[in-house]
């Protein structure tokens, strides 16, 4: 039983290694993706941090009514107030500007008269994309709060009242996150998705080539006429697909880690994922890759041509991405949810990337889930892998 499977495994590996197109797809693309993402990760972190500090210009209608102290507070927070020219509401609604202020003529007078002065803050959270509008609004709110406190302190000082009376509680916030954890912020979202997609797509072309591709070339009939059993043929091909998937999975994550470490510290600011996270992810992903290989094999074995198999397998890639995304946005609420293939592994990889606490037994459960699903898939695959059905049914 073993020798036939080993013979098929060796032949499929040799065949794949000689196929430049498949090889590029299996090796160069994952490596490039890993490196690209490694570069992107610290850049995104740096971009987010710089976004919070970048000077912004805010159009103001009625700037002439502003208290100079208000302008000064805003300037300290990197906000330059500029007089509004043209229709402010239109430019904010269209997303051209993320926010604007409207000061009434009596703004300064009311402040001076120690009355509540109101102003309008117009915003568009969608302006500037995902990392745009909300940042500007947050800083403007901060500036208004700071100005409001400054005015209040002055008023209390005039009355010889200790300003501490107005602040019975003071909060000093300190960010204790490590550079690795900061690096993991995006990685926790992106790494599980990347890992799941590479595990699914890394084996897709090979799974198709050894099944539908072999049918299309007309070599499957001759292979099935040999004494090799159905199980040997299925397991031999599955082993080859798994071997060839493990390489891109390892390459993607290794490329991710190597590139992250080669980047200058001025770019990464120490925010590089530890080797343990990356290599732990490789180990976690291998059982997942096996499960996905089984799924790809079962489906592509039923198709007749390479093209047919490619289009049939597209929903699998979509499902894999959806489950990996689900793990990022709705992490498991009970330990048993880690057993769900793809979802459980993605959740564990996400937790690893965040370098935070790992739920008890999560690693074991996620691996057990993938192995159990693979075992069920292999049994099903062996039942479906029937010579006659394989060769002659659509």
């Amino acid at each position, binding site marked *: 039983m073993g*020798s*036939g499977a080993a*013979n098929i495994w060796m*032949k499929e590996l*040799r*065949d794949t290694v*000689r*196929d430049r197109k498949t090889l590029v797809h299996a090796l160069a693309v994952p490596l490039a993706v890993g490196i690209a993402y490694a570069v992107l990760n610290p850049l995104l972190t740096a971009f987010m941090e710089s976004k919070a500090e970048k000077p912004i210009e805010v159009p103001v209608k009625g700037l002439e009514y502003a208290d100079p102290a208000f302008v000064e507070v805003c300037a300290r927070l990197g906000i330059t107030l500029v007089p509004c020219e043209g229709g402010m509401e239109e430019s904010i609604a269209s997303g051209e500007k993320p926010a604007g202020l409207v000061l009434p003529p009596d703004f300064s007078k009311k402040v001076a008269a120690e009355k509540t002065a109101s102003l309008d803050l117009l915003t568009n959270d969608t302006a500037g994309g995902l990392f745009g509008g909300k940042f500007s609004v947050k800083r403007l709110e901060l500036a208004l709060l700071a100005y409001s406190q400054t005015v209040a302190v002055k008023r209390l000082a005039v009355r010889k009242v200790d300003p501490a009376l107005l602040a019975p509680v003071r909060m000093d916030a300190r960010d204790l996150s490590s550079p690795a954890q900061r690096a993991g912020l995006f990685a926790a979202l992106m790494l599980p998705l990347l890992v799941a997609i590479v595990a699914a797509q890394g084996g897709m072309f090979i799974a198709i080539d050894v099944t539908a591709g072999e049918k299309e*070339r*007309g*070599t499957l*009939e*001759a292979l*099935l*006429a*040999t*004494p*090799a*059993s159905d199980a040997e043929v299925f397991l031999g091909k599955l082993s080859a697909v798994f071997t060839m998937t493990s390489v891109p999975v390892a390459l993607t994550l290794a490329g991710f880690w190597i590139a992250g470490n080669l980047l200058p510290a001025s770019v990464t600011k120490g925010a590089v994922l530890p080797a343990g996270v990356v290599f732990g992810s490789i180990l976690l992903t291998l059982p997942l890759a096996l499960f996905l290989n089984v799924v790809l094999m079962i489906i592509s074995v039923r198709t007749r041509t390479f093209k047919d198999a490619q289009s049939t397998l597209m929903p699998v890639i979509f499902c894999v991405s959806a489950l990996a995304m689900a793990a990022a946005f709705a992490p498991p609420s009970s330990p048993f949810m880690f057993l769900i293939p793809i979802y459980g592994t993605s959740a564990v990889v996400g937790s690893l990337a965040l370098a935070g606490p790992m739920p008890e037994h999560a690693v074991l459960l996620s691996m057990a889930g993938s192995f159990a699903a693979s075992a069920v898939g292999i049994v099903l695959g062996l039942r479906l892998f029937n*010579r*006659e059905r394989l*060769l*002659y049914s659509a």
Partner: protein
Amino acid sequence: MIEVRNLCKHYGRSGEVKAVDGAEFRCADGEITGLLGPNGAGKTTTLRIIAGLIRPQSGTVLVDGIDASRDSAAARARLGVQSDMSGVYPRLTSREQLRYYGRFYGLRGEALEARVRYVIGELKMADIADRRAEGFSRGQRQKVILGRALVHDPPNVIMDEPTNGLDVLAVRDTRETIRSLRSQGKCVLFSTHYMDEAERLCDRIAIIASGRITAWGTPEELKSRTGKDSLEDAFTALAGPEGLEKSGH
């Protein structure tokens, strides 16, 4: 030796398509048996059942006395199969393809290499032995396919339309190979719809029509049975409505 007894393979929900319908014939060692029939007669299905690629609904295939439905792997191990759908692995050399197939039959090491060398010599494929099969002509591909079927020195060889689509030289080479297999004492069963090929090569002919063997015998016996001078006329009589009626349809 290959024996086929009351073989049936029906398709469709209620089995209305009778691809093979009670076929019976015997192919002896050291003889070439031709399976002759019009398109859709059931030749390929019959050969695929013998090769263990399709399970029949009923009937028996014995390969050297081994019941193929009971011990399919053992029966397949005694067969060399060249099917009409066969292709080659474009990224492997001819030699690598022969080795690949040889290993399925337990050949290893020097025994495998010796068989591969022998087949390469027999089929005159030295010029393509170490070339990858990508870009091979139809004739060159046919040699690789035939080589794969023969690498384990099977006592029984089945071929589905082996000369189909080949040029004159390749046809001549293939026919020589078939004769050589007979002289080695092998049982050769092949399907064809070329009358002259059947007449020149076959010791016995089984005529198949609508999945049923309508006649069986040497070319001379078939001609004398129908009173015709040529095998083509005999075939027309035996595979046509009259032949079907006589065989019980």
